[in-house]
């Protein structure tokens, strides 16, 4: 079934063509892309600017480093190993160190040898965009709020905030499910929860385009979802614009029990599904940002967040 284009226009839905020409190619200069396509660069950049991100245990740059993996991991209880240029959560292993090897979340055990082979695969570019040679990053584990852990099946529930010219425009939380295989991608069956920019309260939740009220695997009511440190999370997301210079940015944040909001990764081509999760189109909000002057864009992050919360809040 199709609807008429003007019906979508009235709802302010942003389409793929407009997103590409009016927002991505206008606000995101091509030479800045490597900053976000490489997680290590993003991470170092964020650290310099004081944006929290999961602690870096080590980097594996060459096949030679792979043999020294055991020394690098000595005394580390839990860690995540991921490709710097991976996309869509590919090649990420979350492991806890045990006496007889490394355990996955699901309980499956990996030997040091298997871990080394996985790392070699990352270096060879098995998970990177275009198969180019890559490096592996080893990060500390995120300890997410037990409150939030109830809303996720195996994966980390992350929060996607679209930031346009430094102003947070729309946000959603992505809950991995059994159907999405622990991944947080909406088209693979994760639940998208639209979040109110003003308060961080859930607005609406959808799975594969259909509204849901409870997490399909854990059964927790989504309406009761409450996110701590909401304004701080938005402020960190907004600062990513100052750091990268990318004017149309998808920031993926997580909430850590100890340090609060943390930056996981950045995306220079954020998808459009966030509109479905929010039940609301991006276009009116983006057009409001389009009209801002350079002076408005140069305001400090907390002022920008305050204005966004005032403009785009629904409650």
């Amino acid at each position, binding site marked *: 079934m199709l609807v008429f284009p003007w019906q979508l226009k009235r709802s302010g*839905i942003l389409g793929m063509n407009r997103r590409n020409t009016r927002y991505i190619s206008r606000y995101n200069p091509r030479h800045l892309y490597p900053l976000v396509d490489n997680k290590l660069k993003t991470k170092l950049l964020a650290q310099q600017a004081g944006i929290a991100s999961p602690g870096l245990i080590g980097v594996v740059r060459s096949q030679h480093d792979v043999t020294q993996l055991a020394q690098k991991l000595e005394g580390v209880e839990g860690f995540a190993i991921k490709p710097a240029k991976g996309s869509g959560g590919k090649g990420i292993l979350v492991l806890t160190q045990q006496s007889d090897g490394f355990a996955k979340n699901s309980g499956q055990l990996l030997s040091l040898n298997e871990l080394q082979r996985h790392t070699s*695969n990352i270096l060879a570019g098995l998970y990177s965009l275009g198969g180019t040679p890559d490096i592996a990053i080893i990060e500390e584990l995120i300890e997410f709020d037990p409150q939030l852990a109830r809303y996720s099946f195996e994966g980390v529930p992350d929060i996607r905030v679209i930031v346009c010219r430094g102003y947070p425009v729309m946000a959603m939380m992505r809950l991995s499910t059994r159907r999405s295989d622990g991944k947080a991608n909406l088209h693979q069956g994760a639940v998208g929860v639209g979040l109110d920019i003003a308060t961080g309260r859930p607005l609406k939740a959808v799975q594969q385009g259909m509204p849901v009220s409870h997490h399909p695997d854990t059964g927790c009511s989504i309406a009761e979802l409450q996110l701590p440190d909401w304004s701080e999370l938005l402020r960190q997301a907004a600062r990513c614009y100052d750091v990268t210079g990318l004017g149309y940015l998808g920031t993926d944040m997580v909430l850590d029990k100890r340090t609060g909001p943390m930056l996981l990764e950045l995306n220079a081509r954020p998808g459009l599904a966030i509109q479905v999760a929010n039940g609301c189109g991006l276009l009116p909000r983006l057009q409001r940002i389009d009209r801002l002057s350079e002076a408005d864009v140069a305001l400090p992050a907390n002022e920008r967040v305050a204005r966004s919360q005032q403009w785009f809040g629904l409650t």
Partner: protein
Amino acid sequence: MNSRQQLPRFPLFIAVVALLLVGISLIVHRHWVYEVPLMHGETQTIWSVEASVEFHANGDAVKVSMARPQDQNGYTILKEAGASPGYGLNFIDDHHPRAEWTVRAADGAQALFYRAEVLVSQQNQGGSEPLAPPLRQVSWPEPYATAVNSALSRAYKTSADNFSLARELLKQFSRANPDQDVQLLKTHYGQQLPQLMVDMLQKARVPATLVYALPLQDGRRRQSLIPLLRVWQQQGSDVFQLPSEQSLTVLNDADVELLMWENQGAPLLDVTGGENSRLRFSMLRREESTYANIAENISSQHDFLNFSIHSLPIEEQAMFKTILLMPVGALIVCILRILVGIRTSGTFMPVLIALAFIQTSLVTGLVGFLLVVSAGLFIRSYLSRLNLLLVARITAVIISVIMIIGVFSVLSYKIGLTEGLKITFFPMIILSWTIERMSILWEEEGGREVMIQGGGSLLTAVLAYWAMSDPWIRHLTFNFIGVQFVVLALVLVIGSYTGYRVLELHRFRMMANKL
């Protein structure tokens, strides 16, 4: 809207208008001045045929004599020309029309060209009937002489006259499981089988000779002639197909017409003073206005405004005929991806697949494509377990694709499907990348996404194929260079479209504001 948004649109508008103006005026100019019709159909078909003679000269005087085609049933030779720097060229029009190139001294690799414009016309009822050659005495060594005699006597018993004798004889040789003596001759004579046929008929006191015909296939290059058998009976003569394997595919195709190149058994090519000679043909089909003075049209080719592909040699023109179609295919891809939102694997891969479909015909192409890709995916799934590096992995896929194509060609030939041989027209590197991309997609996103993108690619390829094989579009793109400018203008307009894609109207249907 602010000025930032307005600014880039203005030059775009100018560019689009300028391109449209240039394109349309080129089209109109060509239509009015050269009277090239806009519609396909109100035209006469002209085949430009180019023969190239290549040989290695020894340093002495060289004389090259090549048979030339003459007016015949359905074809009129409009114009003939030769290109041969340094050579004297004469067209000799006695009973055997020939082209003769002569030079006092030549050394090294030589290339001579002969070009004829052949008009397809139903009025022409053919030139003079070729004369029967004198009968010759032929003999064979044993055991072939016995085999020839028994084959002949079998054919003789079941025939009534020269034509039916020839037909009966040919039937014995083309049968799937021939008699033992015929099999013996087939194995021994192999490539010389056509000459053996002639000799056998001569032995039976039937005047016969080998003649050569050119299968007319648009845009083909580096073709060779097909030998046919001409048999005389009282006043008339008739031409028979020989049971030769190479010509089978061409002759079975009903669309292919034959131009008799050499009609009465004279040698095709005679080179004195050179060696390793080779005769190759390229040809091109062209539609010309019925009313235009064709001869004048051809002579005015060097005028600047008629700056067209048609002033190039035929071989290059044949190449351009396909190249000029590609923008149309690319336009289809633009429309489907930007306006409709179909996902394809590899942006312009569907255009290349569509080009292959033009060579293979649609159904054969689709079946072949699906077979090769699915077999390739199967092999690739094994390769992915070997943890190879990317370049090596794709190379392995390329080799497997070539093997798959080889196996399918042999298989289809063995079970008698000559159509299957066309599978070799597929661009193998592109196929390998398609397989690689689909297999990664399968691992990362699952089979559903492979079906979506694979289906999208095939749908795009089929639509591009329809557009590119449409006779009117082929006529326009080849005869009017202005069409390219119009296509470019359209692409610019599509490229600046910021509205919704058709599939987004479905994707966001829940969000529609119905008021």
